[in-house]
């Protein structure tokens, strides 16, 4: 017989009401943790995508800005192209130091080559490239040749095979890129010649033909002169070259960031509402519980319980429920967000990175604190009222 036992017995006794309080704590923790996981993951995903881009300006066809951003973020295919000569035009603009075109090809689902369900393909020019090279783990002295590729960290040759097979075409994996935590990890890069070759042969070798528009590029990566103003150069590009858009990397993912901001604000508002409703419900339920035990609390005081002991036992009850509920909510949030990752990405139209172990620890801690911050203030009021009351009054029906 001890204090803890009294607390636990009391929780059991009002089982139904204990459940409601537990569910409230779970709901608040679940919602906030899930929102935090998605929003933080998404922020991280964008900032990494931006950081690994390595270009100061990206030139894309007019109207393709968002599609391109989605291609970078989510590997979504883009169906807007511009003529390949745009690359040369951009290179001639004052203040532009280096250019390299890329062609975003297609998305491959269920490929055998990857540890992920989807793989993306990009054609690039290894000779002029400055965005992919820095991530290459191996030095390839003779350069990429026809039928060769480098892949993100999730791309590998299936065991038992010498090459990767896509669209009936066999590809030699020459090297891998360092892990970036972005879609690059599940992207395969090869030359424009290889892309043409795959397309040409897919007519005979593949179940599905891979079509690519001739002499087209999806984007031109631009490195500017460090002394020049990027914004001015971007403006110069759009005013000189017709039908293109020049996206400064600092402005990248503007629309996604706006959307994320919206999601963030909505989550905060919704969390606030859930939090306040939970508190009100817990205040109500706790008042009922306390009122029901009014006489019993009077008896405890008569038997020698201090005011503080009474308050402590009630608060302990609340804390146990908060921690259990919070734990359940956090667990469900972590599980749900990882299980329904794809669905959530489709729903919000934004990718998000899985949290690091360190940030999971932080999130668990925050979730529990939040659950406590929901239950304790709510329990405090009825608890203080009943423990301050004169025992003789508490014992009167």
């Amino acid at each position, binding site marked *: 017989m001890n204090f803890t036992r009294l607390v636990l*017995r009391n929780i059991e006794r009002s089982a139904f009401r204990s459940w409601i309080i537990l569910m409230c704590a779970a709901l608040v923790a679940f919602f906030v943790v899930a929102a935090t996981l998605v929003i933080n993951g998404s922020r991280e995903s964008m900032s990494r995508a931006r950081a690994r881009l390595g270009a100061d300006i990206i030139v894309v066809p007019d109207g393709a800005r968002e599609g391109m951003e989605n291609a970078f973020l989510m590997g979504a295919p883009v169906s807007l192209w511009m003529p390949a000569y745009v690359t040369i035009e951009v290179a001639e603009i004052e203040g532009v130091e280096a250019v390299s075109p890329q062609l975003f090809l297609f998305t491959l689902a269920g490929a055998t080559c990857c540890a992920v369900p989807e793989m993306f393909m990009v054609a690039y020019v290894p000779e002029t490239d400055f965005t992919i090279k820095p991530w290459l783990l191996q030095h390839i002295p003779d350069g990429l040749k026809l039928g060769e590729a480098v892949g993100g960290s999730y791309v590998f040759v299936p065991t038992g095979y010498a090459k990767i097979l896509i669209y009936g075409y066999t590809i030699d994996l020459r090297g891998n890129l360092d892990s970036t935590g972005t879609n690059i990890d599940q992207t395969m890069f090869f030359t424009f010649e290889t892309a043409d070759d795959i397309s040409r042969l897919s007519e005979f070798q593949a179940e599905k033909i891979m079509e690519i528009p001739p002499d087209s590029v999806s984007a031109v990566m631009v490195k500017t002169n460090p002394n020049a103003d990027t914004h001015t150069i971007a403006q110069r590009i759009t005013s000189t070259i017709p039908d293109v858009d020049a996206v400064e990397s600092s402005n990248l993912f503007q629309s996604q960031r706006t959307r994320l901001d919206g999601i963030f604000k909505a989550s905060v508002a919704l969390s606030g509402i859930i939090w306040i409703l939970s508190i009100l419900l817990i205040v109500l339920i706790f008042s009922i519980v306390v009122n029901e035990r009014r006489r019993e609390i009077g008896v405890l005081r008569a*038997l020698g319980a201090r005011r503080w002991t009474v308050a402590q036992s009630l608060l302990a009850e609340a804390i146990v429920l908060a921690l259990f509920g919070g734990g359940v909510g956090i667990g469900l949030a972590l599980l749900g967000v990882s299980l329904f990752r794809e669905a959530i990405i489709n729903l919000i139209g934004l990718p998000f990175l899985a949290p690091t172990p360190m940030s999971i620890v932080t999130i668990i801690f925050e979730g529990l604190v939040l659950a406590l911050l929901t239950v304790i203030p709510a329990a405090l009021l009825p608890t203080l009222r009943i423990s301050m009351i004169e025992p003789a009054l508490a*014992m009167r029906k």
Partner: protein
Amino acid sequence: MIELKNVSKLYSVKNRPGVSAVHDVSLNVANGEFVIITGRSGSGKTTLLNLIAGLARPTAGQVLLDDVEVWKLPDDQQALMRNHKIGFIFQFPSLIPSLNVLENVLLPTILGDKQDKDSAHDRAVKLLEEVGLADKLDSLPRQLSAGQQQRVVIARALINQPELLLADEPTSNLDEQTEAEVMTLLKEMFSKKGITVLLVTHTDELIHYGTRAIRMASGAIVNPPVQVQVTT
């Protein structure tokens, strides 16, 4: 042991003149007395016990227990004083429904500061034997009859070896035979443990169990005191 000096308790009720539950009561109870307090319902008996135990704050006057004024003590010392010195028997069912018989009896031992688990456990078992419930240690209160429950309450009241036992109509929910059994048990404990007892009852039938009787009416003690023939 107990000294009340012109004690009054006024309950203020909203929009109405206050109820004077106890009015200008002075009373001395010496060690070893078994005082029976009688009076009709509403005459202030419960309030008087509550005032003695420090469960209600007097609106006027002084309550002294062993020369200490209860309401001058801070809350934790009041609580300790009740825990050490006073055993309670209530008019209403007062066992904690979720705790078994043994745990209920042990309850006062975890609320105080002196904790010797083994000896508390032994004392509880022995007390439950004394009240005739040796075979009910693990039962829950609802599995017991009203009389058995009140016996558990008696055991609980005695677990910390108090000097004073306050019993508020301990037999009002019991049939005549059980009432006699419980009263006999109380009397037995009184003689055996040498404690002071204040027992409230609304009938005069029980006054022969005591060594002194007091009658209350309208919050005051009625004079002259009732003469009691001591039966033991």
